[in-house]
């Protein structure tokens, strides 16, 4: 808030000049950076913006250039012509991938390709069987169709999920059509802003958004808020004068999408749509490549892993099968089975659902996630580059300290200011506050609002006080005199004196005073008291606060009677020898939730870097108060000051904190920047332009960090895009920023980011659990195929049955794991290292595949053998029977007891086997679901019933299995048969074994951290 207009009140250290230089420098840097991104052409385009000459031209030259007239405007016909040539005055939305491409991507992404291969193989074998005139070739046709349907359905589902989350944003970015007041055909017309063309004469007034880049030809008290463009939040005045070579600096150009805060103006449209300055930056942002999100990388890694396992096992057993002299056709069918068994068909859909559940949860906590995958990115974030204004602070000036009676008092700066000062001081206080509140209040001026608010809290109804102290004269603030003065009648009816009050830059005010009020009495202002003033002033200034001085004077009644004509131009009243009342300092205070949030980030191992356009002193003060710079750490400058040595002699390694000025940053090489980012844990970048943000972000990413960036301005959008996760401000943010960001903070509050981090980490953990849960049963599905091929037993489980597990019983439970609470304090560990802490690591895969998965397979095989044995086929009989068993012609197949079976009777028994296998896997998956609730803690520590959704999952799982077995048991195509009730319990001992084994595993992990067991068993 202080930056550009710091010429107003106090805390003037570097002056405005270097700021301007910084900005110009930044422009250059921006272009440099663009070239680095191989966007030379765009860079050239952007350069043209500097060639903009319009601000230098006179009105008549402008009229000539654009073929328009200031009074009459363009003719409608001409305007239509130009509109046809230039296109509408709106930003081209970032090039969206065509819906059909998005859809097709879902169709072939992930495991889909494997399943397509499976489907195609099914159809091929169907074709061959049909050609051979085999008896039941349609099985393979159906299987192929089912596989294709599965792929298409999951694809549609994923597409729908993605579209839904994109729609949230679409509604967000949709703006109310803007209107503009245009002069055309010598008439004033209201037009939709996108109809504007170059050469149009538009009128704007306070509150309007500037509809295009316009060169002002008339302005009255016009101020624009350029914050969305430059990041400066102080409104800037606009006039028709050419004040600066740089079109961005000159006062006679107002930019598209900025807001006119007050006053009125008329101007000629000089650029529309994408050719506006904002338009160019927006297209720059779309040029910054979109990085893959960490979770996308993880999922890809996982898909490769599973696909690799599926393909290698498939091919291996294809070869084994062929070398065992099975028919090629049969071997192909085995291959399909192996692929289907290995691929967790439902998993990607589950992951999408889990992510969108988290996204919903985050939306409730004011984090709106645009891109589903970004949900997790926050969790892996290791550096947050945060804005100051609005994000860390409340974005409103608030009175923070008062100095009077030689003492500093602090005011309550929390969001809901109550009160504050000690009683005994009432008299002086009162005086001071009256002085404050009766001054002119300009709506929109941050300082005035702060004072007003403060006074309101202290005194109550200001309007009343103001009415009683009628104002008779006023000199408004200007930059030369640096004070504001007003003369009032007093509220004491007996007291006929006028009261003169004045506020302004403290040193200027003090100059005009000869006395000072101490404890309600005027005392002469001697050097000792002046010293006290200086100390207080420095102290308040050192806290980065904006300090105001106040003084007053009762004008003697005899000299200034009731009717005295005060003339503010000739100043026919005293402006010196006044009585100094005190100092008051204001700051944009940190949000009360921020310090806590920052410390949470700290303990979560996340480095919080403040990047602000604000003054270093203010930035440092805020950084200290919110804990970005902790109380004990020092910057190089602090150390130098403490040890009283020059800055150069300080060992830079000793300083944990650093405050880097934008100016310094500009001259730094990348290595130096890297060094700073590496060596200091607490960094504040002050006076940075939004373009420098991009450099900082890239620097952080070079360190291998996952970087979150917050921003609100248009100029932030490249950095937001570049960041691993861009976070835009929902309230203060510009549309361009929101478009470039992955996430929108609806309440602009930094604390919401912490919630996001927490949710992100939780979902990462829970996705691990979900994947572990899902992968486990794949082995139980795969083993039957392998044993079927090797031991030639009747097929234990059918391909369709596998699909019913993957897409039926397992779906709800695996989503339910997304509701699992964190096991330990998730915010007390470091962010995951994206190179090492994989979503699916070796331990997870091995533990799921080779331990729990095998247990499940064994349990299911016990059920399988039980079903066959109780029907007459003892396990010994089953080995090696496959060829005869599947022979359609053998209808007197003998079992272990000498009974004879027809083919269909055997098939029906085989389906009963499928059902039994299915039921066993389901039962053991219940145990698997329970053990997956935690990775480290005992289930009993976690609470078996805390996550109710898990139970919904368990009941749904069993419910679906019951429906499939008993409800659909008579639909032969599904290969389910009604199952004897006792077979449901055969696998229960194994389910219990799984639970017990996993509890033991977790116990050892907890008991012996770092041991061999821990390293190999903890996933």
């Amino acid at each position, binding site marked *: 808030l202080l930056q550009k207009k710091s010429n107003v009140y106090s805390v003037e250290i570097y002056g405005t000049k270097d700021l301007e230089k910084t900005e110009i420098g930044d422009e250059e840097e921006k272009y440099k950076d663009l070239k680095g991104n191989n966007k030379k052409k765009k860079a050239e385009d952007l350069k043209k913006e500097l060639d903009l000459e319009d601000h230098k031209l006179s009105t008549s030259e402008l009229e000539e250039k654009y073929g328009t007239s200031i009074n009459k405007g363009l003719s409608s016909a001409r305007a239509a012509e130009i509109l046809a040539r230039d296109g509408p005055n709106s930003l081209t939305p970032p090039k969206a991938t065509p819906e059909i491409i998005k859809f097709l991507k879902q169709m072939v992404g992930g495991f889909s390709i494997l399943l397509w291969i499976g489907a195609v193989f099914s159809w091929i074998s169907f074709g061959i069987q049909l050609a051979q005139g085999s008896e039941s070739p349609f099985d393979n046709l159906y299987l192929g169709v089912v596989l294709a349907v599965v792929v298409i359905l999951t694809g549609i589902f994923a597409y729908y999920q993605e579209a839904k989350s994109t729609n949230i944003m679409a509604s967000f970015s949709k703006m109310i059509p803007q209107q503009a007041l245009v002069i055309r055909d010598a008439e004033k017309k209201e037009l939709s802003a996108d109809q504007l063309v170059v050469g149009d004469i538009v009128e704007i007034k306070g509150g309007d958004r500037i509809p295009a880049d316009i060169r002002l030809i008339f302005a009255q008290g016009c101020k624009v808020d350029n914050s969305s463009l430059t990041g400066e939040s102080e409104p800037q005045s606009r006039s028709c004068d050419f004040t600066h070579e740089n079109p961005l600096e000159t006062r006679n150009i107002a930019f598209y999408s900025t807001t006119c805060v007050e006053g009125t103006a008329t101007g000629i449209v000089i650029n529309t749509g994408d050719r506006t300055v904002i338009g160019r930056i927006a297209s720059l942002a779309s040029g910054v490549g979109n990085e893959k999100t960490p979770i996308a990388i993880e999922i890809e890694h996982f898909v490769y892993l599973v696909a690799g396992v599926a393909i290698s096992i498939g091919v291996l057993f294809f070869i084994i099968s062929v070398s065992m002299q099975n028919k090629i056709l049969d071997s192909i069918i085995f291959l399909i089975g192996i692929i289907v068994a290995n691929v967790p068909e439902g998993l990607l859909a589950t992951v999408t659902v889990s992510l969108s559940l988290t996204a919903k949860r985050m939306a409730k906590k004011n984090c709106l996630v645009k891109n589903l995958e970004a949900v997790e990115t926050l969790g892996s974030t290791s550096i947050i580059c945060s804005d100051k204004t609005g994000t860390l602070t409340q974005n409103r000036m608030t009175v923070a300290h008062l100095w009077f009676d030689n003492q500093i008092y602090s005011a309550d700066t929390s969001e809901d200011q109550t009160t504050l000062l000690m009683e005994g001081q009432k008299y002086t206080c009162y005086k001071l506050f009256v002085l404050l509140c009766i001054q002119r209040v300009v709506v929109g001026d941050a300082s005035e609002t702060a004072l007003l608010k403060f006074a309101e809290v202290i005194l109550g109804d200001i309007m009343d006080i103001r009415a009683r102290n009628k104002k008779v004269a006023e000199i408004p603030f200007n930059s030369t005199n640096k004070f504001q003065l007003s003369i009032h009648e007093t509220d004491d009816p007996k007291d006929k004196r006028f009261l003169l009050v004045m506020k302004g830059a403290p040193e200027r005010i003090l100059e005009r005073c000869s006395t000072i009020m101490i404890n309600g009495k005027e005392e002469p202002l001697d050097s000792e008291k002046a010293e006290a003033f200086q100390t207080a002033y420095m102290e308040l200034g050192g806290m980065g606060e904006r300090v105001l001085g106040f003084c007053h004077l009762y004008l003697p009644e005899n000299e200034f009677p009731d009717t005295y004509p005060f003339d503010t131009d000739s100043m026919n009243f005293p402006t010196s020898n006044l009585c100094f009342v005190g100092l008051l300092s204001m700051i944009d205070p940190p949000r009360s939730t921020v310090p806590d949030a920052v410390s949470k980030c700290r303990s979560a191992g996340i480095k919080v870097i403040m990047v602000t356009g604000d003054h270093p002193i203010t930035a440092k003060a805020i950084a200290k108060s919110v804990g970005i710079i902790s109380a004990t750490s020092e910057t190089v400058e602090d150390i130098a000051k403490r040890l009283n040595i020059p800055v150069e002699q300080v060992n830079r390694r000793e300083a944990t904190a650093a405050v880097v000025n934008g100016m310094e940053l500009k001259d730094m090489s990348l290595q130096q920047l890297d060094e700073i980012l590496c060596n200091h844990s607490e960094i504040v970048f002050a006076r940075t332009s939004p373009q420098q943000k991009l450099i900082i972000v890239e620097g952080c990413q070079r360190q291998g960090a996952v970087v979150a960036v917050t921003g609100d301005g248009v100029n932030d959008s490249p950095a937001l895009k570049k960041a691993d996760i861009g976070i835009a401000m929902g309230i203060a943010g510009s549309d361009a920023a929101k478009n470039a960001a992955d996430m929108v903070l609806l309440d602009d509050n930094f604390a919401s980011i912490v919630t996001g981090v927490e949710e992100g980490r939780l979902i990462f953990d829970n996705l691990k659990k979900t994947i572990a849960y899902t992968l486990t049963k794949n082995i139980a599905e795969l083993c039957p195929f392998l044993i079927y091929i090797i031991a030639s037993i009747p097929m234990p489980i059918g391909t369709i049955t596998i699909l019913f597990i993957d897409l039926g019983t397992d779906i709800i439970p695996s989503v339910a794991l997304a509701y699992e609470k964190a096991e330990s304090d998730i915010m007390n560990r470091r962010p995951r*290292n994206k190179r*090492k802490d994989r979503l699916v690591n070796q331990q997870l895969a091995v533990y799921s595949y080779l331990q729990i998965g095998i247990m499940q397979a064994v349990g299911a*095989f016990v059920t399988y053998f039980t079903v066959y044995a109780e029907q007459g086929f003892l396990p010994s009989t089953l080995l090696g029977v496959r060829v005869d068993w599947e022979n359609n*012609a053998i209808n007197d197949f003998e079992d272990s*007891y000498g009974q004879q079976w027809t083919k*269909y*009777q055997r098939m029906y028994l085989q389906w009963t086997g499928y059902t039994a296998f299915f039921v066993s896997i389901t039962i053991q998956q219940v145990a698997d679901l329970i053990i997956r609730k935690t990775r480290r803690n005992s289930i009993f520590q976690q609470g078996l019933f805390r996550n109710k959704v898990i139970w919904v999952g368990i009941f749904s799982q069993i419910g679906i299995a019951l429906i499939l077995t008993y409800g659909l048991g008579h639909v032969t195509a599904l290969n389910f048969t009604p199952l004897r009730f006792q077979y449901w319990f055969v696998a229960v001992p194994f389910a219990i074994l799984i639970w017990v084994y996993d509890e033991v595993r977790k116990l050892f992990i907890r008991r012996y951290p770092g041991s061999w067991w821990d390293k190999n068993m903890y996933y």
Partner: protein
Amino acid sequence: MDGNASAGDMEGQHGTPHQKAENKHEEKVQDPDRGEDETKAEMGSKTWADLAGEMKTFLWNPEERTCLGRTAKSWGLILLFYLIFYTCLAGMFAFCMYVMLLTLSPYTPTYRDRVSPPGVMIRPYLNGFTIAFNVSQPSTWQPYVDSMHHFLAAYDDKVQEEKNIECISGQYFIQGGNESEEKKACQFKRSLLQNCSGIEDPTFGYSKGKPCILLKMNRIIGYRPGAGVPVSVSCKVQKGNESNLRSVDFYPGNGTFDLMYYPYYGKITHVNYTSPLVAMHFTDVKKNHLVPIQCSLNGKGIVNDVNSDRFLGRIIFTLSIGK
């Protein structure tokens, strides 16, 4: 938190192999993942030679003496673990199977609901249910005849008389006593099949274009077909002209399965049990024509009209007799 994060500092770069001793093992465990990640992230900038090199290091890292990311000791430990683990699991599996098998009776399966009602099969059976031959070419029917002789060898009168007893016809031969006691079997002599016995006509009528086909009912332990009334066999043309099949002779009797052959007591106790047969003598079938024939069992409790199972209580085969 897990050991991974503590070992892997954020700044930890690739290829910093010298870790502290306690982290050593773990680092290696992470190696494969790492390599893969790197491959993906920097695919563009990496040559295949680099990749091959990385792969080679992964397979055998001479510096750390690791194979596939593990040292010999580490491999030993993990293999030992899995050896124990799978041994225990196999033990548990074996125990469960043992307990399960203990619950089974060796004489009668626990359930017989899937195997009944009985299915039907025919002999001769070569490879399919089409019996096609030319009377004038013995080589076309000789395999059928051989198959019949082979099948009927067990029914030779001598063999039957030697092993089995004569039973009272017309009633179930119920043998009480202990389940484990050996059960007697009733004689089913080949000669009962008369013209289809192959005794008088060793070609079973094939040489005359009047083939015999034997029909047998699947054995089911304890099953008493027909509920007191013998199950009979009938044949008809399955689809097409009824006149293609003009006459069929059935032996023995009128094509019935005598009750005395039931119930069956299972392979272990009913060792010499021979399934009763019904011979169907197709004496007048249209020649030079594919004649699809369905022969079904008829009797109480017999199901012969289920679409899904075409061998349940019936059998469909095609006769094609050429001159």
